[in-house]
């Protein structure tokens, strides 16, 4: 254990040539103020670590100025231990380094400084001052005591490069503090924690996205239900409206119905009767018409049928048979003439002699003719036929005139009888004439004596003669006939239009006359018929008229027009009835209601207005609901497509990642700092924790047990026995000095095995009262057992209490 055994001051401050021999445990310097106690303390420190010249500011006692007029300044310290004796000699002369020139001798041999300084761990002057020197000023520095400093000083004794490690420790710690402070706001981790909290709030809001969605959905469903309901209501309103509109329409019909119904009345009308009457009326008209026509016809027929010369015509017509006879007679005559001519011609060719004969004079021939007359009589007999016929006709005419009642037939019969009598007379005359002519002719031809042929010839001549006569006769006959015809034509003259020459003309005329007669007859017949018909019709007409008036009477009308009017009325009523029925049928369901409504039609239109108002209101509601639904759907859509929730979550996660990174960094820094600190602790044998333990012990001791604990973090705090904690600034001066003393002492005690330097206590206990002084005395005695202690004091009581002879420092 190295001890400071001698202090030898050549010259230092107010001290000159002084030597103090020291105890190895406790030495007390007693001296008044300004006697040089502090100078001695400064001397020890400066010899060890160099002079402290004016330029070097020091917080406390070192403001010495080397007395450069005295040379040399300085002195020596002698340390002893098992290894030997170190003498540290430091002198300063002008031109020396400010620290002065140090020589270190071990057992009289000069050795390198490091031989000594290695033994005290190469501490520097400030370390020594801070740790080993206790004085009034230092005691007041209690507030500046920091763990860091204490630790640094303690660790300094542990690991190599411990100050660098301490720097590292602090650097890491600082870096950690930059990232996070317990009560900070600015460090990034503090910020991130707050941001995360904020983001969680944001997320919590976004969390609602789904519940919002459900809410919206629910709302939407409600809106849709409301919409459906409104639509149903609207439909029913529309229906109601339509009903009312319909009712209004029907009301018009109903009014018409009512009006028409009022017009409705019963009309007595028999269709059958009417039809009957009409039929009768038609019949009457027909009859009247027919009567008129008959009357006309009658008149017409009467007027057309007045033949003035009817009797004459009939007489003419009665000659028709005679004419026909004439015609055939004429034709016969012509044929006979022709035959005679032909015979004569053939005689000329075949009997030329006979022809010559015949050309003989007529006396001759008359001769022959007379012969011949005999012969010729025969021929006349044969020609009695017309007489016979006329007799027959006469009989028939008489018969018819007498026996037949018909006037016309009788008339005809009379005519016929007259005609046939004429014919008979005419025929007798004509036969007589021809026989005469034949005789003359034969007498002329008796001249020629042709024997053989004479007779014959004669015959022939006769023949020829006869023939000639016949021819002549025939010509005569022709002439007569023509005369008769001519006469007849004369008679016909009044009836002739144009020329009448031939028989056929006559016949035609006669026929037409006959026809005229026939017509006249027929007309007469017709006229009779017409008269009968007319009468009949007239009867019918009268009957019908009676019948009709009966019908009219029955139907209470006077004439057909009235009846027609009645019919029209009946038909109109029928139409009306149909219309009314149709309307009634149409309105049937609503009839009761309509009757009611019709009493106050304005109520209906009012109702309609109300319904319309309701409809428009409902429509408005529906529109609003539609709009709201669309809005909700849109909002839902936005939510459904929103990745906001994810984004916010991601943001949170990002912040958390960032926090994790920073926390990692923070913890790495913090842990590294702690790691270094702990490493230093361990390397320094855990001096710091031990020191703290000792300090507590000493503090308790110094305060007489009033304080029980010291905590040393950033700030120093103490705990009183009652458990109260105090910051140092609130301690009394005495207590705070005790605290400082306890800490420093504990520290020095911890380092004393490594740094074997004396503790210098310079008037440190000025403020300690008697009680405290007792405690400190006890403590110092304890301390001195382990470490050399030098006490510089002005207090004699202390010296007395320590029961040691003090070294007295006197004022010069």
């Amino acid at each position, binding site marked *: 254990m190295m001890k400071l055994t001698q202090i030898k001051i050549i010259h230092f401050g107010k001290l000159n040539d002084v030597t103090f021999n020291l105890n190895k445990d406790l030495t007390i310097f007693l001296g008044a103020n300004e006697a040089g106690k502090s100078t001695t303390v400064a001397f020890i420190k400066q010899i060890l670590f160099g002079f402290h010249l004016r330029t070097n500011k020091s917080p406390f006692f070192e403001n010495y100025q080397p007395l450069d007029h005295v040379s040399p300044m300085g002195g020596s310290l002698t340390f002893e231990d098992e290894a030997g004796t170190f003498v540290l000699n430091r002198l300063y002369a002008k031109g020396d380094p400010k620290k002065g020139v140090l020589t270190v001798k071990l057992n009289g041999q000069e050795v390198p400084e490091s031989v000594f300084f290695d033994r005290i761990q190469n501490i520097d002057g400030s370390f020594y001052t801070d740790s080993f020197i206790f004085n009034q000023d230092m005691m007041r520095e209690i507030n500046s005591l920091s763990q860091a400093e204490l630790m640094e000083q303690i660790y300094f004794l542990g690991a190599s490069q411990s100050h660098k490690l301490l720097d590292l420790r602090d650097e890491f710690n600082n870096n950690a503090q930059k990232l996070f402070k317990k009560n900070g706001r600015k460090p990034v981790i503090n910020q991130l924690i707050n941001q995360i909290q904020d983001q969680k709030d944001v997320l919590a809001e976004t969390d609602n996205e789904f519940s919002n969605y459900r809410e919206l959905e629910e709302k939407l469903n409600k809106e849709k239900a409301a919409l459906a309901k409104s639509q149903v209501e609207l439909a029913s309103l529309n229906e109601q409206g339509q009903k009312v509109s319909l009712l209004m329409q029907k009301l018009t019909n109903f009014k018409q119905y009512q009006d028409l119904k009022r017009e409705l009345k019963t009309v007595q009308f028999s269709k059958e009767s009417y039809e009957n009457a009409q039929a009768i009326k038609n019949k009457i008209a027909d009859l009247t018409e027919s009567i008129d026509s008959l009357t006309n016809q009658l008149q017409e027929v009467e007027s057309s049928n007045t033949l003035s010369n009817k009797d004459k015509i009939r007489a003419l017509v009665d000659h028709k048979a005679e004419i026909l006879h004439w015609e055939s007679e004429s034709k016969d005559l012509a044929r006979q003439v022709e035959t005679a001519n032909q015979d004569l011609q053939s005689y000329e060719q075949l009997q030329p002699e006979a022809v010559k004969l015949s050309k003989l004079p007529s006396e001759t021939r008359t001769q022959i003719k007379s012969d011949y007359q005999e012969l010729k009589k025969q021929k006349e007999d044969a020609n009695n036929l017309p007489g016979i016929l006329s007799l027959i006709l006469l009989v028939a005419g008489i018969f018819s005139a007498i026996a037949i009642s018909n006037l016309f037939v009788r008339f005809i019969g009379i005519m016929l009888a007259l005609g046939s009598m004429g014919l008979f007379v005419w025929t007798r005359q004509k036969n007589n004439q021809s026989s005469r002519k034949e005789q003359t002719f034969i007498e002329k031809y008796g001249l020629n004596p042709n024997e053989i042929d004479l007779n014959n010839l004669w015959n022939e001549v006769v023949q020829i003669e006869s023939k000639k006569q016949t021819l002549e006769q025939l010509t005569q006959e022709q002439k007569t006939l023509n005369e008769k015809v001519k006469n007849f034509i004369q008679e016909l003259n009044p009836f002739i239009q144009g020329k009448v020459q031939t028989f056929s003309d006559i016949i035609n005329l006669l026929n037409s006359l006959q026809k005229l007669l026939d017509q006249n007859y027929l007309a007469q017949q017709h006229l009779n018929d017409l008269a009968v018909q007319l009468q009949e019709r007239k009867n019918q007409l009268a009957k019908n008229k009676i019948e009709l008036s009966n019908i009219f009477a029955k139907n209470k009308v006077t004439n057909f027009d009235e009846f027609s009017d009645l019919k029209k009325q009946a038909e109109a009523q029928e139409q009306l009835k149909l219309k009314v029925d149709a309307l009634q049928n149409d309105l049937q369901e609503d009839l009761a209601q309509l009757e009611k409504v019709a009493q106050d039609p304005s109520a209906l239109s009012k109702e309609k207005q109300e319904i319309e108002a309701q409809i428009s209101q409902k429509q408005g509601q529906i529109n609003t609901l539609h709009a709201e639904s669309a809005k909700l759907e849109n909002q839902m859509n936005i*939510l459904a497509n929103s990745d906001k929730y994810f984004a916010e979550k991601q943001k949170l996660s990002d912040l958390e990642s960032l926090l994790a990174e920073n926390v990692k960094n923070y913890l790495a820094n913090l842990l590294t700092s702690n790691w270094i600190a702990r490493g230093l602790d361990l390397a320094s044998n855990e001096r710091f924790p031990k020191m703290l333990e000792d300090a507590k012990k000493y503090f308790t001791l110094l305060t007489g047990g009033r304080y029980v604990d010291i905590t040393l973090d950033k700030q120093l705090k103490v705990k009183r026995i009652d458990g109260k904690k105090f910051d140092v600034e609130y301690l009394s001066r005495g207590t705070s000095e005790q605290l400082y003393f306890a800490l420093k002492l504990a520290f020095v005690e911890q380092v004393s095995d490594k740094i074997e330097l004396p503790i210098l206590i310079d008037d440190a206990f000025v403020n300690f009262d008697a009680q405290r002084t007792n405690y400190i005395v006890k403590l110092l005695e304890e301390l001195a057992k382990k470490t050399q202690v030098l006490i510089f004091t002005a207090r004699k009581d202390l010296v007395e209490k320590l029961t040691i002879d003090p070294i007295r420092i006197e004022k010069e």
Partner: protein
Amino acid sequence: MKFMHLADAHLDSPFQGLSFLPSNEFNDIKESTQKSFTKAIDTAIEQKVDLVLIAGDTFDSVNPSPQSQLFFNREIKRLTDQEIQVVMILGNHDYLNPEEMILPQTPYFKLLGSDEKVEEAQFKTKTGFPYTVVGFSYQHNHIETDKISEFPKKGDNFTFGLMHAGVKTTNAHQNVYAPFTVAKIKNLNYNYFALGHIHLRQSLSEDPLIVYSGNLQGRHINERKAKGVYLGIVDETTKKINLDFVKTAPIIWQIADLELDHEISQSDLTRKIVDILTRKNTQKTLFGLTISGAQYLSEKELELVNDSDYWLQLSNSLNFDSRLVKVYLVNNEKLQLKSADKEAFNQAESETFALEKIYSLANDLSKKSDYVADLLKKPEFIEEVKELSQVKLGQKLKDMDDETNSN
């Protein structure tokens, strides 16, 4: 019979540790969860499965976004339209009130045990093979009771267990997700036990099969491995199951290792990193990179490899839009200290990095943030902190040494 087992889709869940990515690059990643889910559904339809089991945590939270719910509903409808039976339970993340969910209304969708009670449901495949599914849904975020004892005895039917739970551990506060023991599940002797909750795909037992299908899409660097679904084919006579994993996740996470044994120039470092990543890059990947021998990095390089801009720059050389998203530094050299001090520092290290010490040091912080408190419970995080500390101190000591030597 064919069935699909999927779990932990965590729709809406964010990715972790990608905050530095530009937002446009982030979209793909964002959609990957839904894409993976869609792929799973596609697979179920393609494979014509009879049954899809969804073992909880389909949604990441009890407040799923409408977007996710509608997405889920749409996807499930695709299955039920094909008459594929879907049986689903809710997990500790999505313990929703079923009445507040948008769920398909069809007999082909069954939410099992929605009152948190074990429920048994019987079904038949289209070909008439009868089977039973037993399970329950969460209605709280924690279930501390033993649910397995509530599971009924296996009947004649082929039986599936469906549960969202974690194996019972010695750590009591971890046993809050229907804790179970494998032995107890084995005792039930169900033909297949489909589990959810643990994101790492694994089989707890081969006979009978007790299986975690894992989550559908890795969300952070610690969820590596291919993610997807299990496809099971049941031999209806022997009841044997042939189980296949089908990858569905469009993005994977991987860690690449770079070991340094000497100091290296910045350009060489960059080249080496790109080489290593490129070798591993076979599909869209989010890479973590471990650099061991980090003590060989200069302070500048150290700063660089921790800079996300540098990661982005590196990633531009990678195919498939893969990205480097994290760098771990490992100092594999002991501290450069004198032997006496070394001892002290080694001891100090083990003392300082004792969990309790860390917790006490981090106490002020973890009190302020639950997230940090949870973080500190993760051993891998502690390990990262430790690695970082070592790198940091090692770096400093090396500098100190350099300083000393150069003096």
